[in-house]
């Protein structure tokens, strides 16, 4: 298997090699959804690297031997492993493959985002999203390689290791792919649920967004504007425009920085009605593609073009659906149903 796989060549079925996020971005790309271009540093690259590390001294058996209750031991191990991951030279062919891919992706030196894409992350039953890392506005290939290494190292963070021990995941199956994606200089960004997070209603789409990069919304640092749209009708039934005090923008030397919004921007909706409807269209397409409601991260570039950053199946209401009974059973005659209105409350 190659160390690098382009989005256009992978799908959700490739999760074991490109991770959940990589597989999903590949799937969306293949489905014709606008996703910023990118590639995945595959599990093969990680395995090659790990092999090199373990050739010196084992790693997986140490993690497997960990007592999840013993925080002290976990902290100590995490520090050791992190140093080893950060200091071990990368296998030459992996490093070359990454540099070549980066050159192809960023012909004009465009910045990238580097995000971990664990093979277990986003799993419908054991979401440990958020335990892995994301690095935004990474400026060059060397920096990108450092960030890939940090993503790998995050597998051995205290939280990540103890979580795996508690869940009793075998370490052999635990690997990390990393997504490297052209960075969107977002005018605004946010999340979209293709069903209601409050009632589970599948006929509405909830969109939340704020100015600047989506990181401020995902991390909860800014209260986003919120809209509820009819999935089928497009009617906008709810508009909550919040006071968005700040936004995150690219920093000059790489990374991101938070800046204050002026008064007018704070109170202005970050999306127009047309943009909301464009987002709804994309949301519907993705939902149709997967055949179930989705939890989506999106951004609008400076020209207002909608770009998809991530999509995963909605899990909370999906579990409730499985247990729910039908609203009403069919009747012998359609008009028998009117007794529900005319017959009074059933005791």
């Amino acid at each position, binding site marked *: 298997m190659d160390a690098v796989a382009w989005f256009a060549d992978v799908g959700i079925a490739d999760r074991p090699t490109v991770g959940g996020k990589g597989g999903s971005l590949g799937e969306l790309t293949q489905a014709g959804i606008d996703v910023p271009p990118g590639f995945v540093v595959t599990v093969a690259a990680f395995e090659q690297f790990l092999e090199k590390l373990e050739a010196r001294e084992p790693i997986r058996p140490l993690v497997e031997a960990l007592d999840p209750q013993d925080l002290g031991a976990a902290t100590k191990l995490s520090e050791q492993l992190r140093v080893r991951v950060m200091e071990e030279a990368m296998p030459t062919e992996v490093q070359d493959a990454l540099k070549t891919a980066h050159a192809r992706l960023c012909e004009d030196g465009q910045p990238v985002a580097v995000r971990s894409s664990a093979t277990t992350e986003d799993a419908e039953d054991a979401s440990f999203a958020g335990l892995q890392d994301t690095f935004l506005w990474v400026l060059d290939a060397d920096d990108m390689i450092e960030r890939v290494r940090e993503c790998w190292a995050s597998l051995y963070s205290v939280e990540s290791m103890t979580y795996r021990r508690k869940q009793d995941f075998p370490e052999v199956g635990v690997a990390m792919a990393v997504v490297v994606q052209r960075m969107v200089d977002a005018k605004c960004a946010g999340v979209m649920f293709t069903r209601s997070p409050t009632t589970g*209603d599948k006929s509405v789409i909830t969109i939340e967004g704020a100015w600047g990069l989506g990181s401020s919304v995902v991390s909860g640092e800014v209260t986003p504007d919120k809209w509820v749209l009819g999935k089928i009708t497009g*009617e*906008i039934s709810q*508009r909550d425009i919040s006071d968005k005090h700040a936004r995150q923008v690219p920093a000059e030397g790489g990374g991101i920085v938070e800046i204050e919004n002026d008064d007018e921007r704070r109170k202005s909706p970050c999306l127009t009605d047309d943009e909301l409807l464009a987002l709804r269209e994309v949301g519907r397409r993705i939902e149709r593609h997967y055949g179930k409601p989705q939890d989506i991260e999106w951004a609008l570039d400076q020209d207002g073009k909608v770009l998809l950053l991530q999509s995963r199946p909605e899990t909370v209401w999906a579990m409730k659906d499985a247990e729910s009974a*039908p*609203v*009403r059973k*069919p009747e012998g005659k359609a008009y028998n149903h*009117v*007794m529900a209105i005319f017959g009074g409350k059933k005791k």
Partner: protein
Amino acid sequence: MSEKSFPLPSSLKVTPGTEAAQAAYPYYAQFQPGDDERFWFYNSMHFPEPMHHFDMITAEAAYCALGAFNTRVHVLPTTKGIDHRIINGRVFIGGVPVTDPEEVEARAAEFQQRGFYYYENWEKLYDQWKDKMKALIAQAQDLPTPHLPQLEPMETTHTGKGVAANHALIETYRKQLNGYYQMWHHHFEFLLLGYGAYMTFFDFCKTAFPEISDQAISRMVAGMEAEIFKPDEEVKRLARRAVELGVDQHFTADMDIESVLADLDKVGGPGKEWLGELETSRNPWFNVNVGDGFYHYHRSWNDDLSMPFAALPGYIEKIKAGENIERPMDQLIKERDQMVADYRELLDTEEDKATYDQLIELAHRVFPYVEGHKFYCEHWYTNLFFNKIREFGALLAEHGFWEKEEDVFHLTHYELESAIIDLMLSWSSGSPPMGPSRWPAIVAERQKAIDTWAGETVPPALGQVPEAIDDPAIVMLWGITRESLDTWLSDGEGDPNELRGFAACNGVVEGTARVIRSVKEIDRIQQGDILVCQVTNPTWSPLFQKISAAVSDIGGSMSHMAIVAREYGLPAVVGTGNASQKIRDGARIRVDGGKGTVTILEQSAETRELEDA
């Protein structure tokens, strides 16, 4: 939260100076001592203005019929009829729920033989209904204009008729009254059953899709070829004919209708042909009135052509520019069917899909009646009725009973019958009638009372606050729920510049409010204005090409206005309660047709002073 309640009926005082006018309403519509124990609400939906004494006939005829069908014809299990009371010109109504479980059960068994028979045979019975209604309308049209000749025509003698002209007065009057009461029976023959089928689908959708909007459900149910679209389609047809016949230059924004008609007649050929087309449109489709048809002053297009004529120049301009102004019927039907299919696809189980199919099919079966009956009842028949009464008004005015024909509406229908008999006696005996010395003072007194009452604030409800409102008739016809009571109880706590109503058609628009109180004012509307009015109905739809949004005091999300607004894609909020009072003409407002809110952004002090002065 503090315990809030509505005032008791017994605490309401008749406004000083209007006692006689109040006492003149029928005794059976006056509040009684025991009424404090019950819950009443102000029927602002149907009777938003103080009632002229004659117009109370609409309330009593309607409640006679509504109750008869609920209580004794279809036998609705949980509810009987509606009681009504009037104080200070305002109509309050109270439901009569059935609460004894045994009685509910017994009535349910009856209902399943009676109401179900209607559902089973809906199409056949509805066809019959249309025949009955048309026959009733024909009868009303055949009634002679009341008239008293100096001497009986010779014909009476030669044919041995044996009945003199004064008898025709009482005969015509009573026939016309009978017809009106009967029309209201026809009106309620299907209505509750139709709404019930619709509500069943509505409830299913609200359970399956908790956040679905009322307007989305209404759009799935709406019929495409309903009578309510016809009047506007006729105006479009007339615009098209004007262009085809080359007479379109006669129709301008500032035209005087009378001279346009005279000019067209003079032009001859094509002009006369167009006038012929106008006659075709007028009968029956211009028998729509500019209100809900519940008041005598809701005049029809036929009585006043300004509404349809106001729309002609705009349509003509569009036709000449090559624009298509026809309703894209095939596309509308396709869109509706697509919507029904799209919601169906979101249902989780096959059982729900089967139920959904049953309910939408039933709703589509009953809806032609729900949408169509108003044209025949509230518009066509009601216009004939009030115009006939107007003829009596004119005849009695001629004999000095009062000054102008409209004054007749200050009498109750009993009083009017007595005035007619007074005139019959006078014609018969050759002595002067007594009415002229009696009625003018009463008419003046009642006009003054109506003016006084019109300025009063009306409590939305009276009496005991019910635990819950599960009377299907009240929920369906008036949209009153426990939630709306809570809103009423907390009135005055919200943002005073924000009004809430039913979200009728999606879209946000900011613009200048044009508060229109009668059809006489429609020429004040400028392109892009937001129409603010008390009642809107399909007859206002020709104006929709000119305005950018619409706001009304009255109406629900399935009101005809809402249906038409959605077709035009015109942002609209209906049923705000008091927008036409709170919003001053010329104010800057924002209408959010998706949320159902209207915000007053800027209301100049000048307009306010003018109004307050």
